[in-house]
């Protein structure tokens, strides 16, 4: 491992809560999202999607539709010719390959699967034509419950696999059986986390056009333009260098847009085949039916305790409900495998054993969504801890303190072989308890004068961040992930960052510019970040998995540092000084200690480009002011704590959230305001997952809430203000000491919420601890009635 580069500009840009450079255009309605890009002659696409969850396609009758005067193209699997592969190598031996056709051929496996494609002048007309297509289906038994699909006699969803279970493995560390045999208390629970969707406000959308120069341009609302380019090349069998993928302004992704979806190949194929620009903008119903779902796991969690609260072992079986396919490129393992590898959390479990099973069902495939795997896995572990604390007569905080990894134990290797780099968990927890007034609230009576029950809950998380190759491997994914950035100084001394990273709302253009400004020593305003376009950037994996600030920031530090060193060498020559004695601050290069001996960065840049008489000999120093650097750092583990205070109406089961406190240690912060924004946004989604959101399928595999009327995401009245605080322990492993911050809230706020509910009900008989998400009023009433069963959804 290379030592991180020392940076520390004279004028600070890192750590400054700057206003975002992205915002004025957005605020004026000038930012361009996919649907805002106009090319004359663009035709629109609508899809005929399956109404059956599992059925053979007997016949597609499309003659009438084809005769519609405005039907430009009607394509079914018969006419479609693009391949269906993911290019990401996944070397896990026991993973059975699940093939996802882009257009269903002989059978459909979930409601919403594409059967036919219609191209017409407008979306209105395209939908008219879709209405004219008739499909005859032959129904097959459909599975919406994963444990039904796992049965030996279950109908096969992918016949060629010979089973619906396409992945299973197990892992043991230490003598877990002995730990359980010697335990004073074992708590065992079945925990069911609900199925949700990232549901960004901008749905998916793809536009594609074939140029006169035989180039393919694809605009997609994606989080990973470069991998998409590689994948389109592979699936359309065309050379990658003729493809340009652009992710324009993207209206939220949250991991969901870090996949390859069939539409991202169908549209380019149409453009290539028919040489016409085509556009598809997903509508909200399509989105809820056919953009990847997330978080649904069935977890059997068993934890062994000593009577003083010491945790001695964990046994966990995580059953992932993958839906109908193994979503490209990450596969359907993404929930369960990540959950199990992260099972120890913040604690020193001496023994652990886990079993992972991933099984197909007739629902939309599951994929990445903020806090992948961990949202479910942490919930199962923590709710069992909460129950154990109650049975042991302890507060959950006592249990935390007793079992936390201590600040002097880092680097710490967990029972699942993850190397935690840094942290001070006690300090973070204490801060959260203090800000939330936890102890005081705990001591007050549960019953309030208004008849409601007061509840306070706290939870703690450790989050694996900055997915590079090593981080991915520690999470159970042997993928190669890295990033590259080019830093280029032009003759005027202004700087362009060409990044393979890409912002879809996180303000990365601002943070990367801050990192560059500080590393280089130029004014913030002199830095421009170009991203989201494979024609102008450098190959990168994209923005997901809390990686961009760390890996993107790291590439910028490395490349900017190279440019800075070059600049100093040239300046040293021009100024007849030693480059070691020079420094750069806000565009001015001067001899340390005597700022009057100075030149501007612009002057040196100009000389470098245009004045061969003044600059050093080009054999000595090549006169280029650009550098391209790669970065694939080890994992950095962020941590934090949430507290949620609620008032529960015990008669209706409604939870009113009164306060949220979030404390996070994501190492050195580049832009604290942006970090707060991530914490608040994540908290909102975490509350959504914990309280409201559930995509419910009936027993025949129909999604019962395929609209925003019934799939509920939080609105402004759902949430109170979200109070943020920070503890900083820089990562010793990463450039800048950064740790990721994007997903954190999704690892523990839903737990704090459930803990608050358990606390509000602590005067009730029985140990009432919820074991299900979301906890809607129905689930609360079930809990109060002590029928703590997951609601059949």
């Amino acid at each position, binding site marked *: 491992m290379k030592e991180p580069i020392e940076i520390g500009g004279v004028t600070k840009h890192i750590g400054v809560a700057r206003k*975002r450079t992205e915002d004025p255009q957005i*605020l004026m309605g000038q930012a361009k*999202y996919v649907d805002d890009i106009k090319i004359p002659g663009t035709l629109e696409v609508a899809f005929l999607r399956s109404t059956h969850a599992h059925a053979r396609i007997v016949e597609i009758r499309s003659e009438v539709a084809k005769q519609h005067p405005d039907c430009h193209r009607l394509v079914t699997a018969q006419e479609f010719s693009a391949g269906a592969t993911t290019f990401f190598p996944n070397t896990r031996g026991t993973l059975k390959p699940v093939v996802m056709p882009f257009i269903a051929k002989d059978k459909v496996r979930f409601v919403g699967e594409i059967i036919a494609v219609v191209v017409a002048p407008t979306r209105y007309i395209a939908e008219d034509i879709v209405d004219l297509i008739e499909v005859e289906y032959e129904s097959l038994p459909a599975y919406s419950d994963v444990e039904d699909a796992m049965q030996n006699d279950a109908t096969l969803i992918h016949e060629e696999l010979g089973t619906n279970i396409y992945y299973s493995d197990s892992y043991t560390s230490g003598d877990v059986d002995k730990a359980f045999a010697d335990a004073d208390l074992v708590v065992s629970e079945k925990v069911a986390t609900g199925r949700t969707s990232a549901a960004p406000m901008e749905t998916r959308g793809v536009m594609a056009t074939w140029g006169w120069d035989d180039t393919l341009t694809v605009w997609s609302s994606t989080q990973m333009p470069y991998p998409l380019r590689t994948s389109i090349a592979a699936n359309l069998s065309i050379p990658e260098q003729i493809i340009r993928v652009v992710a324009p*302004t993207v209206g939220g992704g949250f991991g969901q847009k870090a996949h390859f979806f069939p539409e991202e190949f169908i549209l380019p194929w149409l453009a290539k085949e028919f040489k016409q620009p085509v556009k598809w903008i997903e509508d*909200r119903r399509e989105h809820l039916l056919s953009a990847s779902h997330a978080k649904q796991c069935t977890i059997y969690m068993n934890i062994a305790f000593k009577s003083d609260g010491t945790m001695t072992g964990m046994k966990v079986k995580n059953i992932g409900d993958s839906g109908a396919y193994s979503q490209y490129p990450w596969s359907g393992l993404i929930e369960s495998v990540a959950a199990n590898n992260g099972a120890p959390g913040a604690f020193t479990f001496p023994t652990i054993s886990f079993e992972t099973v991933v099984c197909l069902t007739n629902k939309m495939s599951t994929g990445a969504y903020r806090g992948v795997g961990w949202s479910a896995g942490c919930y199962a572990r923590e709710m069992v801890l909460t129950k154990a604390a109650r049975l042991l007569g302890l507060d959950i905080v006592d249990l935390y303190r007793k079992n936390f990894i201590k600040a002097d134990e880092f680097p710490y290797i967990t029972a699942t072989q993850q190397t935690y780099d840094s942290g001070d968990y006690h300090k973070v927890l204490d801060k959260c308890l203090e800000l939330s007034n936890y102890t005081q609230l705990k001591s007050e009576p549960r019953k309030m004068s208004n008849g409601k029950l007061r509840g306070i809950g706290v939870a703690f998380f450790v989050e694996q961040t900055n997915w590079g190759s090593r981080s991915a491997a520690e999470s159970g994914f042997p993928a190669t992930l890295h990033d590259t950035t080019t830093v280029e100084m032009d003759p005027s001394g202004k700087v362009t960052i060409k990044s393979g990273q890409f912002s879809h709302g996180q303000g990365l253009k601002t943070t990367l510019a801050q990192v560059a400004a500080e590393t280089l020593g130029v004014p913030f305003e002199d830095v421009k970040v170009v991203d989201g376009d494979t024609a102008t950037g450098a190959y990168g994996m994209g923005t997901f998995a809390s990686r961009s600030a760390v890996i993107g920031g790291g590439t910028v530090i490395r490349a900017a540092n190279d440019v800075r060193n070059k600049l100093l060498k040239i300046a040293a020559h021009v100024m007849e000084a030693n480059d070691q004695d020079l420094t750069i601050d806000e565009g001015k290069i001067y001899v340390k200690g005597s700022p009057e001996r100075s030149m501007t960065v612009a002057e040196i840049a100009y000389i470098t480009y245009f004045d061969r008489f003044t600059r050093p000999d080009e054999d000595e120093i090549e006169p280029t002011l650009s550098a391209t650097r790669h970065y694939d750092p080890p994992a950095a583990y962020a941590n934090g704590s949430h507290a949620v205070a609620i008032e529960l109406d015990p008669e209706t089961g409604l939870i009113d959230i009164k306060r949220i406190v979030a404390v996070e240690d994501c190492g050195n912060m580049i832009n604290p305001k*942006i970090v707060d924004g991530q914490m608040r946004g994540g908290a909102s989604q975490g509350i959504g997952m914990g309280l409201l959101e559930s995509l419910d399928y009936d027993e025949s595999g129909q999604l019962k809430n395929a609209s925003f009327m019934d799939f509920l995401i939080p609105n*402004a009245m759902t949430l109170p203000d*979200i109070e943020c605080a920070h503890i900083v322990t820089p990562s010793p492993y990463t450039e800048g000491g950064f740790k990721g911050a994007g997903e954190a809230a999704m690892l523990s706020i839903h737990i704090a919420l459930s803990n608050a509910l358990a606390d509000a009900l602590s005067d009730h008989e029985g140990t009432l601890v919820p074991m299900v998400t979301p906890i809607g009023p129905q689930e609360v009433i079930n809990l109060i009635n002590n029928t703590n069963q997951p609601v059949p959804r």
Partner: protein
Amino acid sequence: MSEKQKISLNVNGSNYEREIEPRTLLSDFIRQDIDLTGTHVGCEHGICGSCTVLLDGLPVRSCLTFAVQAEGRLVETVESLDSDGELSVLQNAFWEHQGLQCGFCTPGILMSMKAFLQENSSPSREEIRDALSGNLCRCTGYHDIVDAVVAAAAASQTGEADRT
């Protein structure tokens, strides 16, 4: 009639006349027929609020309005808020307080809040949350938006500018 209908309406101070199918939603008319793409479409069933515009000064869902219903009326969209690139007090407050992240919902929120602040010039945080609740945002958790609206109200009160 389902054949095209001629409509004329005023959007952001300019008059437009177009021939459209009666089923054309006002949101699509604004975005496609007159190319004002600042107004966004997030659900097309009236829940998310991204498409909110002002119709005769009142915020409405443009996805739950047929363009033919806007015949002869005044429509204001997000593009009307700034003056030649100079942000309004409300827009500035959103920038200052980071009342946006991906920005997709932002135009609808700005239009709702513009109308709201005209009715209630010094709202409490709770009143702001109530007024905001018809606009979904998936990124911010709303906190920073509430901050921005509080600041915009305060700035307008102290007369820093008279435009919200």
